[in-house]
């Protein structure tokens, strides 16, 4: 009885996931332009959230500077499409490439800091890159610059058409990041990452290459963040240091999304992004208080259920809605639970 309700809930979850995906596919025909713009924003934020979760939730790189790569993507896209006059559709993947190239020196800097200090270190690097972007006169310096109409029109002569095009790009970016990261998590690499998430020292002992996985995840995330930056630039039609490198939009909100939704799970960022948009659309009129509510909520989550809302729900479910780790054979579980504490005693 109990097992069947659990299985039923799992299938309901999967059904909701597919229904959501179906709605997103049909969105341009279903919704008005303002809703399409909102959904575009949703998809960009979802992409960034999935990537922060990969980096912080699995690879244990607690960065608060990931907005740097969004900004780099934005500026690179603008540079290729507007200044270098390359085909804007080609400029989008090129922006991802530039973000990836920047990730290498950034990594060389912040990986020298021990874990506890990496967070602020990554913030310093992001701040430096933002200030440096403000020194680029071709990009309008500190006040930024708008995209010329000629480039904008390539994405659609009429606003409605353009919104639909940008929406499809955002959809493609989000789909690519979700599916490819899901495949990554299902591979042997994903098994190693799950081991890091659960117990870093233990993972090292069983032969998981910790630093290799951390490097892979950090480099994996950067191009997707760059793509998100390109989409965001298309939507805002301009680049400016504080907006393109916005710590509030691309890091603060994203951390709240992942923490509240459930860090270290694939479902968490998705749930978190949905909840975040609900909170924002209903509570944004209360101004600063919605930040305070998000802050209190995330602290409460860390204290009460570090695995977030999804962790809470997951307690009552027999398996993940989005399966990532191949399940061990059933008899394996009880022995594992019995033997672990015994080992920890023996270590004393």
């Amino acid at each position: 009885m109990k097992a069947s309700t659990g299985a039923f809930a799992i299938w309901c979850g999967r059904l909701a996931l597919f229904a959501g995906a179906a709605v997103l596919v049909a969105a341009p025909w279903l919704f008005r332009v303002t809703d399409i713009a909102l959904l575009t924003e949703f998809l960009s934020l979802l992409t960034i959230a999935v990537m922060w979760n990969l980096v912080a939730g699995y690879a244990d790189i607690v960065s608060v500077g990931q907005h740097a790569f969004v900004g780099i993507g934005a500026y690179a896209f603008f540079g290729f499409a507007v200044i270098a006059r390359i085909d804007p559709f080609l400029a989008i993947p090129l922006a991802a490439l530039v973000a990836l190239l920047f990730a290498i020196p950034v990594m060389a800097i912040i990986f020298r800091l021990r874990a506890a200090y990496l967070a602020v270190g990554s913030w310093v690097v992001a701040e430096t890159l933002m200030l440096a972007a403000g020194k680029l006169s071709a990009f309008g310096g500190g006040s930024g610059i708008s995209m010329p109409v000629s480039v904008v029109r390539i994405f659609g002569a009429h606003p409605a058409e353009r919104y639909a095009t940008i929406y499809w790009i955002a959809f493609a970016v989000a789909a690519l990041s979700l599916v490819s990261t899901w495949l990554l998590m299902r591979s042997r690499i994903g098994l190693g990452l799950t081991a890091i998430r659960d117990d870093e020292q233990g993972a090292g002992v069983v032969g998981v290459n910790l630093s290799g996985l951390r490097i892979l995840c950090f480099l994996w995330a950067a191009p997707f963040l760059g793509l998100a930056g390109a989409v965001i630039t298309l939507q805002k039609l301009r680049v400016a240091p504080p907006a393109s490198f916005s710590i509030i939009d691309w890091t603060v909100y994203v951390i709240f999304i992942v923490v509240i939704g459930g860090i270290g799970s694939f479902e968490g960022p998705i749930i978190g992004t949905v909840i975040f948009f609900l909170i924002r659309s209903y509570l944004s009129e209360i101004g600063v208080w919605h930040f305070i509510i998000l802050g209190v909520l995330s602290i409460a989550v860390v204290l009460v259920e570090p695995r977030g809302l999804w962790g809470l729900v997951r307690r009552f479910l027999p398996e993940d809605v989005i399966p990532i780790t191949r399940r061990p054979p059933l008899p394996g579980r009880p022995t594992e639970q019995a033997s672990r504490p015994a080992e920890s005693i023996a270590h004393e």
Partner: protein
Amino acid sequence: MNGTPLLSVESLSVFYGHFRALDAVELSVGAGEIVSIIGANGAGKSSLMKAIVGQADRIEGRICLEGADLADRSTAEIAKAGVALVPEGRRLFSSLTVEENLRIGQEVGREGDIGFDDIYRMFPVLRERRRQLARQLSGGQQQMVAVGRALLANPKLLLCDEISLGLAPVVIGDLYEMLPKIRERGIGILVVEQDISRSLAVADRFYCLLEGRVNLSGRPAETSREIVARHYFGG
């Protein structure tokens, strides 16, 4: 032993999560008595020590010092009540000087007549090295500081957890010679040790633990080595 023993442990079980590290253990230590706990790795010796100083995850049963239950007391309160631990692996504060380490022992303990001079008389080398950092000392000297730190707390009950671990035999001999002298002050001593012969030689009584249970207890002089060995390995 007449009246209330110094330490009495009554049907004590210790849990880590669902794992039961100790199962209904009964034992006692009298004032001025050396009691040895022997047992193989994982038998529950360290869990017993942790439980007495109030550092176990969850316990059932009673741990009483002079009849007063120690349950629900913090480690700091238990230390003030007169229980001092020489932890396994010494666990000195490595960037503090010898003197600072000893003073911390004095501060966490209770009032009493054991002072710095007593410790320096017991271990003269520590007086010479009192201004040095603990990490600059040899293993044997570090163990002296650990014992001194516990004694400066003026304990009624001294817990020694594997004090011979990783030390040269000569040094171990010196340390074990100190135990009867400490006993003369009326301090009860509970010794946990894997080195059976060493700890049985010095003990008034012993308990053997196997898989969390006491399977043998008695006086070393009255128990044959074969019986001890059989219970130690669980034959």
